């Protein structure tokens, strides 16, 4: 299907020429190539979901939706339920999002709003991004050998004096929700900080001028103008950070305590879906493997829902003047 070209360049003295047939061929093959890769990725995703889903079928038909609300996990009695893990996943991720999000956004503000000379801003930005390069197993080890001994006195103090508050109602016996959440926050912090910084840097200088021109103080400019303007990007950063927290496995498997319990207490051991999968796969029999696939589907569904909700909220609040 040859495209009709405007001819006439020969007669005129214009320097513009229609694209040559080689240009057009290159254009078309490039388009075909990108199209193929896009579809291949989508197919791969579908294939993964399909495989996991199929292997989960025996467990789904045996345990049904009761699987989601039951709290027992007894391999010998063939009784399985993942409510504590769903709780642990969401609870740890929300707490980490709260902590990591707060510090991530604060850091982004500090590194983009002219508090520091430009060079220093860039140096600090890179150092913070290095946090993302630390392997999660190293975080886990650091949590066990450094963090837990470090926070134990604080945890004891809180439990002894403020034990009536549900969050402090048990004592820290070692691994547990609190160290897991702390490490998780550190792990999502670089993501949140980096993407929020991008959002702040994307604000044009004239917007800042407008804010100061109205007579804002520096903090008023940040809180009333810069933060709302960057909110779309910041929200995206939080969703990504939350997604990362939900799926984080190794560090949590090492730090969360792997206890099949539901507790509000920060010091109680708990479990998460990802940690459950990682720790039970090696010795799983046929039925248990299917059960774990079912749990994997649930985890997948949760992350999917979070991402869809995030995308929906972002498109509705609309960063910039799309609407």
């Amino acid at each position, binding site marked *: 299907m040859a495209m009709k070209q405007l001819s006439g360049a020969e007669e005129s003295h214009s320097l513009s020429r229609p694209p040559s047939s080689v240009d057009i061929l290159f254009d078309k093959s490039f388009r075909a190539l990108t199209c193929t890769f896009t579809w291949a990725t989508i197919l791969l995703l579908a294939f993964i979901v399909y495989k996991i889903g199929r292997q989960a079928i025996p467990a789904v038909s045996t345990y049904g939706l009761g699987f989601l609300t039951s709290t027992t996990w007894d391999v010998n009695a063939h009784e399985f339920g993942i409510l504590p893990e769903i709780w642990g996943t969401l609870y740890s991720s929300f707490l980490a999002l709260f902590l990591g999000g707060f510090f991530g956004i604060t850091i982004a503000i500090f590194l983009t709003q002219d508090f520091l000379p430009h060079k220093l801003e860039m140096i600090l930005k890179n150092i913070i991004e290095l946090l993302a390069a630390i392997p999660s197993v190293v975080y886990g080890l650091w949590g066990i050998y450094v963090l837990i001994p470090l926070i134990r006195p604080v945890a004891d103090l809180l439990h002894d004096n403020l034990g009536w508050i549900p969050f402090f109602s048990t004592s820290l016996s070692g691994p547990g929700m609190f160290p897991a959440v702390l490490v998780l926050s550190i792990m999502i912090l670089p993501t949140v900080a980096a993407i929020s910084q991008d959002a702040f840097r994307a604000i044009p200088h004239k917007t800042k001028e407008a804010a100061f*021109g109205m*007579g804002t103080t520096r903090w008023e400019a940040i809180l009333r103008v810069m933060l709302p303007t960057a909110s779309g990007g910041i929200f995206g950063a939080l969703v990504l950070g939350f997604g990362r927290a939900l799926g984080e496995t190794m560090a949590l498997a090492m730090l969360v305590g792997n206890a099949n319990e539901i507790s509000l207490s920060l010091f109680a051991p708990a479990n998460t879906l990802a940690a459950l999968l990682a720790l039970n796969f090696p010795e799983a029999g046929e039925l248990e493997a299917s059960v774990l696939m079912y749990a994997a589907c649930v985890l997948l569904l949760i992350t999917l829902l979070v991402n869809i909700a995030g995308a929906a909220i972002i498109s509705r609040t609309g960063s910039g*003047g799309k609407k």
Partner: protein
Amino acid sequence: MLMEAQSQQQATKTHQYDAADVVLDCQAKQIFYSDFLAVRDSHVPIVKNKITGFIGPSGCGKSTVLKSINRMNDLIRGFRFEGNVHFHGMDIYDKKVDPVSVRRNIGMVFQQPNPFSMSIYENVAFGLRLNRYKGDMDEKVEKALRGAALWDEVKNKLKNNGLSLSGGQQQRLCIARAIATEPQVLLMDEPCSALDPIATRQIEELMVQLKERFTVAIVTHNMQQAQRVADQTAFFAVDISRGGRTGYLVEMAPTAELFSNPQEELTKEYLHGEFS
């Protein structure tokens, strides 16, 4: 309305302003961006309840001088202002003066429209909220939007994002935002460059109305506009004699006088080029 402006121009011609009428006295000895000398030796007195026009070729430092008047340039790294700007008997470049309060009293409309990424209503209410205004917000917002000749176009979509408007509408939104708090002095940097002739006339009428209560300084490339609205006109030019490109004030006079009988050769040439 325009007749009124012209008759006032006639009036200023006969009596020269005295010091008491000058609300803002800008004496810029040297203005630097890092080590680049952008403007030198420019004394621009801005008379109360009058419109002062800034004209001159591109790059001669009109925006630089205008932004120096409310310390907007403090945001730019490497910016340095030598001289002083007297406002209500104090120098706004004095160490003790808070630039924030200067900017609250001396509002600004920028060369590029720069509405906030928030609703049209919130854009206009921004300054009112900032100044903790307690009265009827809706009324003030409507009044400011009417003043900026934008009300009819946006009254049914006040909740839409300000950035969803067209360029010219955005500029009028910025004007509405600036006049909502009724600053004593309003600085406008080419406020009409993105507007069609009708909106331009409306903004000009607004300026003429505003000067009854406030003071206005406006940068414009439109000589007709300067003649239509400005009571005083300051002509700037670029001096390339010393190797740099330094802007300076060539002359300043009541508008009619400057246009009909310029004293300086440069002014003559510039105006001549404009009108031939």
